[in-house]
């Protein structure tokens, strides 16, 4: 007995040592370049950290943040982006996926690629085209809308406070739907077809079949899509940096853009980090809420 226990313990230790040796390379990169910076981010947020100063200021950065009118404006813009983009991306990609998952393998692959194209093309390349499309004088939007008589003026889409944020959301939308569509196509393909057929035989309408059979089984996918889309929308930065630089008059400032404006234009690293921590906490709370809400829905 004692002997076999001892041998067992030796085996566990050998297995543990082997496991950590396999984990080691990944752990080095993960701890070094994800976890350590995360803690540094929190640490720096309590300091007045600039080019020539590094002094502990406690919660001063956080206090300043909530009183900063540009931060408030950026927060409102970020929330607008999330509130508009997340539901539309999710609903729209579910609709597209429902339309293509029953097609033959070739069309399915074709549409999956097509909707992924704006993501693969790359933000910088895509934004070059959008910049032209929104151009006041030579852009496609004004040309088409004037042509069909919707508007009779040349609108400076990205330069007008009323339209700039909507333009950013539109581009964000086209570059965000690729992954959800792929995920939904896979999830809908995995729905138990016998259940669907049975409910159709029983005379259920398409809508009933969808809500009672398909919706519950694609719930985990929906949750995942909600979370990744929320994270991405909260972090909207590249489009703004490339297209509007936060303007006009801060109409397209987002928290992410403002963080990097403070950190790299004004060299206020501590202040930037405080806003970063705030953003991380908000994202965590949103993810948690979505997790709770969607899980409750599933248990009904």
């Amino acid at each position, binding site marked *: 007995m004692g002997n076999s226990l001892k041998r067992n313990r030796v085996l566990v230790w050998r297995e543990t040592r082997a496991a950590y040796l396999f984990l080691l390379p990944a752990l080095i990169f993960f701890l070094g370049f994800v976890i350590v910076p995360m803690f540094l981010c929190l640490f720096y947020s309590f300091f007045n950290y600039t080019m020539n100063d590094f002094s502990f200021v406690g919660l001063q950065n956080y206090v300043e943040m909530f009183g900063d009118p540009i931060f408030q404006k950026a927060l409102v813009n970020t929330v607008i982006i999330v509130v508009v983009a997340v539901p539309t991306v999710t609903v729209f990609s579910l609709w597209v996926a429902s339309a293509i998952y029953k097609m033959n393998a070739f069309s399915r692959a074709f549409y999956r690629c097509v909707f992924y194209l704006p993501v693969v093309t790359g933000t910088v390349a895509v934004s070059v085209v959008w910049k032209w499309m929104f151009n006041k004088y030579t852009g496609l939007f004004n040309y088409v809308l004037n042509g069909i008589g919707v508007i009779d003026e040349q609108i400076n889409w990205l330069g007008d406070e009323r339209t700039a944020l909507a333009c950013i959301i539109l581009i964000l939308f086209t570059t965000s739907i690729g992954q959800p569509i792929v995920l939904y196509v896979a999830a809908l393909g995995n729905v138990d077809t016998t259940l669907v057929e049975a409910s159709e035989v029983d005379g259920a309408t398409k809508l009933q079949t969808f809500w009672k059979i398909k919706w519950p089984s694609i719930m985990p996918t929906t949750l995942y899509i909600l979370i990744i889309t929320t994270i991405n929308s909260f972090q909207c930065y590249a489009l703004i940096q490339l297209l509007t630089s936060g303007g006009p008059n801060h109409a397209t400032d987002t928290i992410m853009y403002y963080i990097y404006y403070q950190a790299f234009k004004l060299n206020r690293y501590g202040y930037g980090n405080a806003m970063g921590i705030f953003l*991380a906490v908000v994202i965590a709370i949103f993810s948690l809420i979505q997790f709770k809400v969607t899980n409750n829905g599933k248990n009904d």
Partner: protein
Amino acid sequence: MKAKRKSGYDILVIVVMIILAILMIFPLYWIITGSFKDAAAINAAVPEWFPKNPILENYSRLFEKPALRWLVNTVFMAVMSMALTCITAAMAGYALAKKRFIGQALMFSLFVCAMALPKQVVLIPLLKEMSFLGLHDTLWAVILPTVGWPFGVFLMKQFAEGIPGEMLEAARIDGAGEIKTFTTIVMPMIKPGIGALAIFTFISTWNDYFLQLIMLNASEVLTISLGIAKLQAEMATDYGLIMAGAAVAAVPIVTVFLLFQKYFTQGITLGAVKG
């Protein structure tokens, strides 16, 4: 059985899908055709849908800039990120899926929770860290954080779950060591997973403009994305040149995507299955 018949709704779906497909393809189409247009055609008030007098001058002007250097840098960065991610993630994913060890649950939840972190938030301290390590303004400042991102570990764990325990047991009985078991049994079994991760990492590194923007400033380490953004900032009106740059950035990566899209799709689908 009811005869299949297209309802009004079905036709509406088809029409909408075709319009959407055109909208999705349009940016790429416009980049490629635009790169062959002269200034007059590009700035025409009435859009020229197809270049009437195609020219190559935009490309020759682009490669007078160090565009070739940008391309080489981008390829190096994407290939190194891809190789290192695949190796480290395959090893870690195998350990998490198939080994029973002390601290396993903790390790796994650490990797999973970190995936919910907004990774762009940590770029300020990351930049400080890179300066400290003397890696700021080198391509490694982009490669190392990319390899550290836990998505790959998670994905490889999903694939490694499928390896039958008996095969590993049999190898052990045959006297194969840990490394031999990994290279001869595990690696061949998770090959499709490695393919998916490789293509996913290659594409996302190629396009990760934000990380490149923060980490790379010096002209000799610019990537193609940074190069075009620079052209766009410095010569905003030279659309032909910018379109040629955008084409050089987009066409290779889109080609890679189309060639391997099956693996790519598999990768993001499996990565989403909750573990």
